[in-house]
């Protein structure tokens, strides 16, 4: 505690206690030197403080009144196993240093009505990544809502298996009302017995308060919450990342020109805490044993978000929906 005095206190100290003593008639060169030295020190300490909050370096964080603050990214997040990411350099570059928040909330919305199955599959692909984190033994729960089940059908275990998810680690529950769904999701996240909880989210019931509750519950239970919106939603949520999914025509497998290839999605990462937004067109290699993403060739160069230095080729026009996290 003593080794890391609070930077704000350090700056305020002389201001409060010194005036009575510092009754010098004019400033000297030494004073200027001192001032600069102090300012440099202050900036360095503030940087250090921010780094601690972001979890980039270890150490206690002092908050107001000498209380310890918890970092935004819990330290256990970085210690246990590899980061939760895509295994695709182009995308992972835009994610924060610690990967996607393992104990945080993530939004996924379809670009249009018909993209909902793709959004759901993307959520499962993300959750699949979450289950791969080393030492993770907990299962996955999908809270479904009755109207959505009627609209888009039941989740199918054999289909999940082709996506690479074991049915032993998959649980589902169907609820009648959105209110019940949020209650169930919160309880599930809080219980800490699930690696990830996915939920069908109805935008009209989505408020900052409900999502804030969910993200607090996720942090408490150290599980990831994924909200799959029924339709495209741009309102305020307290999620750490926000994705939008649209389907794209797939590339036919090399030996059969007429049959559908691996699913191809256009992903827009419109908001990410401590990362950079971006958009990509990827293929989900669900038939491979590894179930990984690949960039769709031919489109990848152009589809990368501007601002990354490796880009060669025309810059795409940034969409108005994009916002810096």
């Amino acid at each position, binding site marked *: 505690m003593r080794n890391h005095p609070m930077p704000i206190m350090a700056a305020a100290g002389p201001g409060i206690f010194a005036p009575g003593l510092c009754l010098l008639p004019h400033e000297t060169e030494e004073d200027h030197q001192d001032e600069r030295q102090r300012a440099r020190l202050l900036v360095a300490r503030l940087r250090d403080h921010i780094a601690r909050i972001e979890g980039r370096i270890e150490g206690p964080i002092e908050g107001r009144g000498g209380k310890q603050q918890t970092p935004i990214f819990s330290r256990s997040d970085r210690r246990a196993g590899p980061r939760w990411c895509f295994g695709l350099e182009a995308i992972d570059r835009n994610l924060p240093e610690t990967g996607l928040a393992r104990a945080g909330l993530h939004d996924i919305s379809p670009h249009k009505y*018909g*993209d909902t*199955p*793709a959004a*759901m*599959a*993307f959520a*499962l692909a993300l959750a699949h990544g979450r289950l791969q984190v080393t030492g993770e*033994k*907990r*299962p996955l*729960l999908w809270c479904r809502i009755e109207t959505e*089940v009627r609209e*888009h*059908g*039941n*989740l*199918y*275990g*054999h*289909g*999940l*298996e*082709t*996506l690479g998810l074991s*049915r*032993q680690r*998959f*649980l*589902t*529950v*169907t*609820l*009648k009302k959105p209110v*019940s769904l949020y*209650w*169930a999701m919160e*309880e*599930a996240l809080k*219980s*800490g*017995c*699930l690696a990830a909880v996915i939920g069908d989210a109805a935008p009209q019931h989505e408020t900052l308060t409900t999502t804030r509750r969910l993200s607090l519950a996720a942090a408490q239970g150290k599980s990831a919450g994924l909200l799959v919106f029924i339709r495209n939603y741009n309102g305020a949520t307290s999620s750490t990342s926000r994705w939008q999914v649209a*389907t*794209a*025509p*797939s590339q*036919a497998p090399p030996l*059969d020109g*007429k*049959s*559908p*290839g691996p*699913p*191809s*999605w256009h992903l827009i990462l419109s908001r990410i805490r401590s990362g950079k937004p971006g958009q990509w067109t990827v293929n*989900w290699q669900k038939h491979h044993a590894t179930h990984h993403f690949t960039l769709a060739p031919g489109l990848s160069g152009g589809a990368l978000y501007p601002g990354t230095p490796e880009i060669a080729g025309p810059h795409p026009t940034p969409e108005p929906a994009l916002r810096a996290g």
Partner: protein
Amino acid sequence: MRAPTPPRSLPFALVESGAKGLRLSALNQAARNFGLMRGQRLADARAAVPDLLTEQHEADKDVTSLLGLCRWMERYSPWVAPDGRDGILLDVTGIPHLFGGEAAMQKDIQNKLMAYGFSSRLNLAETIGAAWALARYAPTLTPANAESLKSLPIEALRIDTNAARTLRRLGLKTIGSLLSLPRSSLARRFRGESIDENVLVRLDELQGYRHEPLNAINPPSSFMAHRTLMEPVITHEGLQAILSALTQNLCHDLAAKQQGALRLILKLFRSDGSRTQLPAGLSAPSHDAGHILRLLTPKLDSLDAGFGIDAMTLEARETATMAERQYGFADDVKSHSPQQSLAQLNDRVMNRQDQTLMQLQAVKSHVPERAEVAAGFNEAAQAALTYATQNQRPLLVFEHPEPAAVIAAVPDGPPMRLTWRRVTRRIVKSQGPERIAPEWWKLATGERPRDYYAIEDDQGRRYWLYRDGLYSEENATPPKWFVHGLSA
């Protein structure tokens, strides 16, 4: 529930139709004062008392009302049974001291019943027979000793009218006179088939020589916690505090016996004599007070407390043995295994939302909709069957395949254009057909072979559809198309 009752001062009777017209089945004190009797014909009664008020007797409502009263009586003893059409039996072994002694308890019951508008007679004895006799043929608080029993009339033996009449004709008018006779002569004279005719059996039951079981309506659980309150409680906070204390007590008892509750019932006795109960189920045995409290507390929200709750009972109706768990050094005392906390989560969802966590379980079947069942999460954990299909399957499957209009280049070729949910899509890629024949060994009639196609439209959206039936079938309706699932 109660119809407006006529004033007590007016003669009033309930009538029921018998073999020879209407007869009085029950009367009030005013009617009895006029000399009317139970079993009298209504015509005779009307002749004697022209302004007699009558009402049809509804026997089935009597039964429900008596059962309701039995449930109310559970506040005094857990072992309560209805007796005939107008009696209640309570086993109060080891109970009266809780209510301040036998006399105080009887007084309390009588006062409460009187407050609800019931006139009652009650007495206490060592055997069911003696208690029955004393309650009906002796004043309240008669001590149950040999003298008081001997002076009771013959009818107090619970024998039918024929047997009683025979005994009276023989000059045997009290139980005492019957007891002075030798057993063998009684046994010779009364060898009735039914128990009501067998005087000796009834006599033995009265004296306790022969055991008579008491079948309680709700046999009490071996694990229960009860609390009677001084004042009725109506606030949520108050009830919650009592519930918390009850849960602690119950869980302490359960833990001492290494048992865990599977099914719980919280009984709440309202001050107006009615009772309500809140059930709760658990998917895995537990004696964790915090968990049980979390299941029951939300149920208090929708509770109708009436004029207040003045007694509460928490029972563990079903229990199972729980192995003692050793917690590690590093573990928090309250920490649970993932399986345990998953069961607790399931309990909370089940009790609050009436839904259970489901696991998708594979079934050996070729037909896609039969290849999988959603099983409750506990059952699934026991029978984890792995059976994977080699073929591509969609992520989402409709419960009922949705009819669609399809245009194909050749009749049994892949689809070119799909109209589903009133939107037409141009199909650019398709894979199939995958032919799935009906399972002839299952006696499902009317099923036709299906040709499944996995298709992709020009926007990259994927559907899983099938053609129901074949063009080559003879004398059959032309095949129809259905969308069965959606894929990413």
